[in-house]
């Protein structure tokens, strides 16, 4: 142990011992980064009305509360539905946009690209109240359609950035080869390019899903009535009183996120022939 402390840790011959403070600091920070997220899980199994850790008695009453409540179930349905639909809409629309901008050399490509990024640059709360007003006019307030459209707009920059960067690193001469062999552009794209940016496609889809599933602010304004989202209801519950059911819902949300990420890993693997 002592010899390890004296051994050099870097090109500049700083020793591990001199860096011990950094190691301790880093480990503590990483624990603090992960801890809060993980803490909700055991808490959700606590029997007590007051959020306590470690739980005195274990029970699943908060889960029963959640699954038994029609209101919460409706919200969960809405959230999942919206997230899946957002993923299904935003991914192809975003990839098409990224491909179009990557391959066309119209002079206003840069401008169009910046426009794609505007949802990231405009403060979320502004998007939310703007959409609220627009939806009242268009009569799609409190609908899943409205939610999907708004969430798609929020997810698009991520999809465009991720797939755009994958396209940038991709050798377009492969698509050219396919075209020289007789494939029109769209066939060349689907049979040659798409399989090779697979990882980016799946990541984009995952990002789109999560953007929608976790979204709070816009949902606060445009979801409600028959179609409140899970996050909207959670937020309202948080403001009113600290209901431990939220711990259960949080755990379930973590679970959903983890499942989606595992699926992304599986589908995102570049397949070998």
């Amino acid at each position, binding site marked *: 142990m002592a010899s390890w402390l004296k051994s050099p840790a870097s090109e500049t011959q700083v020793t591990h011992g001199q860096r011990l403070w950094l190691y301790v600091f880093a480990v503590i920070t990483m624990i603090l980064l992960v801890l809060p997220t993980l803490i909700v899980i055991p808490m959700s199994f606590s029997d007590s009305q007051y959020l306590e850790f470690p739980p005195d008695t274990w029970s699943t009453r908060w889960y029963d509360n959640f699954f038994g409540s029609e209101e919460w179930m409706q919200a969960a349905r809405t959230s999942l539905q919206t997230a899946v639909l957002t993923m299904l809409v935003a991914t192809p629309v975003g990839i098409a946009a990224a491909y179009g901008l990557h391959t066309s050399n119209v002079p206003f490509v840069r401008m169009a690209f910046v426009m794609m990024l505007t949802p990231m640059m405009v403060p979320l709360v502004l998007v939310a109240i703007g959409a609220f007003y627009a939806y009242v006019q268009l009569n799609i307030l409190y609908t899943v359609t409205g939610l999907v459209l708004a969430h798609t707009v929020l997810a698009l920059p991520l999809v465009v950035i991720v797939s755009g960067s994958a396209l940038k690193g991709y050798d377009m*001469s*492969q698509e*050219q080869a396919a075209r*020289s*062999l*007789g494939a029109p552009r769209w066939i*060349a794209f689907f049979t040659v390019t798409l399989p090779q940016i697979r990882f980016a496609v799946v990541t984009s889809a995952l990002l789109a899903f999560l953007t929608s599933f976790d979204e709070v602010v816009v949902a606060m304004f445009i979801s409600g009535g028959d179609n409140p989202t899970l996050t909207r209801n959670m937020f309202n519950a948080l403001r009113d009183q600290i209901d431990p059911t939220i711990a259960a819902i949080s755990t379930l949300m973590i679970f959903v996120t983890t499942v989606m990420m595992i699926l992304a890993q599986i589908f995102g693997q570049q397949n070998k022939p």
Partner: protein
Amino acid sequence: MAPARARHHTPGDHTLTTQATEALPISISNITKTYGPVNALDDVSLEVKSGEFLTLLGPSGSGKTTLLMVLAGFTRPDCGSLKFGDDEVIRKPPHLRDVGMTFQSYALFPHMTVAGNVGYPLRLRKVPKSEIAERVEGALETVQLGGYGDRRIDQLSGGQKQRVAVARAIVFEPRILLMDEPLSALDKKLRDQMQIELRHLHEQLGMTTVYVTHDQREALTMSDRIAVVNHGRIMQLSTPRDLYERPANRFVADFIGESTFLAVNRAGTDVRYGETPLRYSGDVPDTPDLQLMIRPERVLLSDTGPVEGANNFPATASDVVYQGDSFLLHARLQDGQQIVMRGAVRGDRATSLPEPGDQVTLTMAPEDTVLIDGREV
């Protein structure tokens, strides 16, 4: 797509052959392509004969690759006409041109096997499955990769990848083949070998081939004719021999082979180097900047002083470089100009090369003395 064509087999042999009469001539007329202020192709016209192996040779940025891309349909020129045989194809998209093409990076699809890659154009043309397998194997055998169908692309060496790329480009029996610097990524030995193989392939299949390279030795080895390209224009279009022996201008003379150039002048009907009239062969180009092209291997080192009937250049040796099989002699002429001479190391030479400072006599036979237009093009 491609019309069905009779395929010729010798019984038991699955390799491809195409009758030379099926190959198409290419007619390129007035192709211009500008990128802003830059003239990538400047009113280029060129006729490629049916079944010919024509090389576009030039330095980077000369426009040779641009011209190939115009032939393939990936670069749209500002104007011009392009005919494959009798068909005007200039406005046809790449996937309808039915030309085989290989890319500098091979562009093999990594997510498919070798057979998957080679079979791709056949699948696009809706060839029945059983026939695909047979034709794929035939193409692979033609490039000496028979049986490699199940390999993955990342398992192949550079040379093998190159062959798969060729197999993929010829499996659907196109009548025109385009090749974009296919050998530039290979090491020297492999490159030399592949040059011969590609040449044999061309003779076997007979398709019209347009080949792009910056390597002049490669061009000289493989081509029926060479078009030397620079600044978007064709500097000279000739057979390798004519190109080497009778370059049309300084650029071509410089690009092909190694040469030094001597300024010479006209006096009446004579051409003189300094005060000495030259004995030369070929024409005198009509130019204010007349130069004598000196190929190092055409200059001889005389052991006995000036040679009767030849052009003699008394000089002082400035540098002698022994290179094993040959030696280089840099010599300074009386008026200060430099010549480079290359000679074989044999017999006496092996032990007695000239020393820097020696007075030497360099001679050139009249048949080897060529005059060129020295102006910048």
